[in-house]
């Protein structure tokens, strides 16, 4: 009899707990859902970058022909390739050249001789070409090259020098500038 009473009491307690748990579970499931929102901000800055070798060397060799004048074939169509990229649609490119000049210069310049060679440099990027001529001060006009990555070949043309070339070493530069925009 005592055992029955204990069993009953235990069963009642178990049922009571089960019922209580069910009630608690029903209360959580019926609560309002809540959301937490994380807004993520990030950006990529407009940028252009020359990769690979920079500067690169373009060696033209002997500039004079047999009679001492400029051999234009030693300059025209000579090219070298830079590598670059720009990541924004409005990116621009321009070229600035300096004369191919005797270094160091000779002062005064002997009559009948020249110590500078003018030329035009063209840079090609993303099928757009920017040019500059050494006979005109300052850089050439900007062209929009947009978003691209790859080769930027630089080619020389229109070489000119009036007179006999003084002997010595000649140096010039072509600066290709990419401006992100």
């Amino acid at each position: 009899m005592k055992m029955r009473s204990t069993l009953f009491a235990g069963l009642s307690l178990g049922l009571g707990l089960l019922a209580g748990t069910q009630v608690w579970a029903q209360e959580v499931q019926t609560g309002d859902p809540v959301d937490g929102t994380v807004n993520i901000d990030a950006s990529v800055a407009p940028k252009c970058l020359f990769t690979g070798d920079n500067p690169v060397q373009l060696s033209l060799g002997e500039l004079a022909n047999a009679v001492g004048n400029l051999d234009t074939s030693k300059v025209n169509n000579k090219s070298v390739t830079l590598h670059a990229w720009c990541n924004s649609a409005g990116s621009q490119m321009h070229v600035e050249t300096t004369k191919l000049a005797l270094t160091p210069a000779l002062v005064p310049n002997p009559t009948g001789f020249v110590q500078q060679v003018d030329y035009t440099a063209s840079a090609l990027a993303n099928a757009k070409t920017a040019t500059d001529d050494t006979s005109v001060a300052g850089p050439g006009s900007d062209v929009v090259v947009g978003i691209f990555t790859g080769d930027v070949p630089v080619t020389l043309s229109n070489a000119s020098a009036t007179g006999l070339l003084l002997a010595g070493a000649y140096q010039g530069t072509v600066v290709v500038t990419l401006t992100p925009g």
Partner: protein
Amino acid sequence: MSHIKTLAIVTLAASAIAVPTLALAEGGGGGGGVTYGTPNSGNVNITGSVALKCDITNDPVTLALGELAGAGGTLDTSKVNGHSVNLTGWCNGTKSTMSVQATSIALTPALPTNQVPSGFDQSVDYTATATANSVSATDSSSTPGAGSAVTVGAFTGNIGVSLSSASASGLLVAGSYQGTTTVTLTPGM
């Protein structure tokens, strides 16, 4: 619930601040948002050279002196002295030099020495002077070898060659006389 609302408000406020900040950065200095970012340059260094060189472009030239003997059969120095001719040349180096080598104006073909009659001569000595770029080099045919080199630098134009100080001993053997004056330009820098 109240805690969640607070978080949402803070996030919204941060976004409101971040958006104009980004827009300002993209504005890039008031260029209307067209240009921004830092330009990047690729450089091509171009080198070339011009070799040292000199050239004489009208080589050779002939200086015809005509009859050398005077009425008395001896050398008429006026037929040699003061006669000149121009070569044309150039050098492109600042330390280019010039030298002259003169050979006697000699009977050609020469008689063997033992067959030259006494009292006769078959060669005429002289001095040759070459002038280029206002600098002169000389040589006398009476001394072997070339005269001293002089620096003519970079020049282009005439190289005047003139004869002087002609001399011969005795009567001149009849015949054809030939001599040479060689002007040598050596490029230097």
